[in-house]
């Protein structure tokens, strides 16, 4: 892979209901933040990739709403439907292909506008499964059950993920749900779909993220500190839940392997300083860490108990507070990239990981982590 870098990031505050703002308003804010961060103007942007989802937005051709706000009127522009990490992958491709020197990537979602249970129910096969009435929470609860059964991970360990991430969010002014909570609070919260309590689940959120990617030549032209993209890969598992080994994330393992090998990282655990992973539910943080090879299979819960994943731990995971503290779907993964960029630049404020040089960001598409995208970012070229 030729060299390319993230040279600007912008994240809106993540909130339960941005009732005053349209999609375009959120995108306008995030894009301007990213441009400012990169010390660029819109004229320095060669092309645009927006990321959105027609179901979540309640609008076919959902990208239409944000064309003006992303400055795309006279530029080449495209739209990825899926998590923002996939949008960023396409944005990166458009730079590495030689077609453009810089790509502006946006991802937005307003969970407040829809009924998320119905939106995610629509991801089930309409012929066989949909009318049974499952949604993302009930499907993931089934995955959590299978994962716990296979690995012996306990409800308490899962709850600790919630405690850690909501606690980290106390340090992140953009986060929606900063909370000082205990394992008992999590286990005592409403049981939504056994074994997932309310505090095992990420909230419904509104938010937007914008990221600017540049080729090697343009990366250092504007005065911001480039964070280099060293490896990136994505992979999809089978669709039907019953076709997969649900307690394992096979496609994540493959994507991570490829991304680490592109980055010439042979021992991720010792080389990665910080991880932002897609913790839509507590068990997922543990399961994804194992699948990515950042932890021995089945041991993430125990490691968490030992404090490995805290801000001061061996491998800080989701120091920003993660998705459990604010989960604008679609933007979720792009925010993970932006947070790692902030860490590697030393600009993460109160949740800065001291000396972070290499980081991994991760995004998910589909039910129960069918498809994953893994990004390896590095302070050094």
């Amino acid at each position: 892979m030729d060299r390319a870098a993230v040279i600007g990031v912008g994240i809106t505050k993540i909130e339960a209901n941005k009732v005053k703002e349209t999609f375009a308003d959120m995108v306008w804010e995030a894009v301007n933040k990213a441009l400012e961060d990169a010390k660029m103007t819109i004229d320095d942007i060669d092309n645009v990739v927006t990321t959105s989802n027609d179901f979540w937005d309640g609008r076919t051709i959902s990208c239409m709403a944000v064309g003006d706000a992303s400055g795309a009127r006279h530029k080449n522009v495209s739209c990825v439907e899926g998590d923002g990490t996939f949008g960023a992958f396409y944005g990166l491709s458009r730079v590495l292909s030689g077609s453009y020197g810089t790509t502006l990537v946006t991802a937005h979602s307003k969970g407040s506008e829809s009924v998320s249970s119905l939106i995610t129910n629509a991801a089930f096969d309409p012929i066989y499964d949909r009318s049974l009435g499952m949604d993302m929470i009930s499907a993931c609860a089934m995955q959590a059950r299978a994962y716990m059964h296979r690995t012996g991970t306990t409800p308490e360990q899962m709850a600790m993920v919630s405690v850690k991430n909501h606690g980290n969010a106390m340090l992140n002014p953009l986060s929606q749900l900063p909370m000082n909570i205990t394992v008992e609070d999590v286990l005592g919260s409403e049981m939504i779909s056994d074994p997932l309590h309310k505090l095992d689940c990420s909230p419904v959120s509104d938010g937007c993220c914008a990221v600017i990617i540049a080729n090697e030549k343009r990366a250092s032209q504007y005065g911001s500190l480039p964070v280099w993209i060293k490896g990136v890969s994505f992979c999809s598992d089978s669709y039907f839940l019953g076709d997969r080994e649900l307690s394992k994330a096979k496609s994540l393992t493959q994507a991570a392997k490829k991304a680490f090998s592109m980055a010439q990282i042979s021992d991720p655990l010792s080389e990665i300083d910080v991880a932002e992973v897609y913790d839509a539910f507590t068990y997922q943080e543990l399961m994804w860490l194992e699948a990515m090879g950042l932890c021995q299979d089945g041991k993430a819960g125990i490691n968490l108990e030992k404090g490995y994943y805290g801000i001061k731990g061996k491998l800080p995971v989701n120091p920003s507070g993660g998705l459990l503290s604010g989960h604008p779907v679609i933007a979720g993964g792009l925010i993970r990239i932006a947070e790692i960029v902030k860490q590697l630049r030393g600009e993460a404020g109160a949740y800065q990981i001291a000396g972070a040089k290499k980081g991994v960001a991760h995004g998910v598409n589909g039910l129960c982590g069918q498809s994953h995208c893994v990004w390896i970012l590095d302070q050094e070229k």
Partner: protein
Amino acid sequence: MTAKENLVIESKGSGQPFNYAVGMYGSKFFKELRENRKLLGTKCPKCGKVYVPPRRVCGECFVEMTEFVEVGPKGIIGTFTILRYAFIDPETGEQKPVPYGYGFIRFDGADTLFQHYISIEDESKIKIGARVEPVFSEERKGNVKDILCFKIIE
């Protein structure tokens, strides 16, 4: 084995409800419409274009607009059609009543076009450039239906 039936699975009206944020620009527009029957656009500080519906960003200049200007209520037909085919209104899931006049209205003082119904009482009068005015609803709720339609004048 039974013969082929071309079996169909129906969605049985399981729709998706949405609470679409109107945004502050739109909310201001609808407030004026509801309370004062006035129509507002936003003016770009750079190119001077007046946009209706009002919005935050001038797509042409990529700048934020903060100046509201009153437009119309009279205007001209920028372009139009008369809808004659049956289709399902996605909001209700029911057939939409046709025919209806579909107009792109350029309010006096505006640079863009505003989509709404045009009355088709006399189809022969519906032409590009024809002057129109809005017919306001007596009971206004603060949405686009506070205008019932546009009718040809002069």
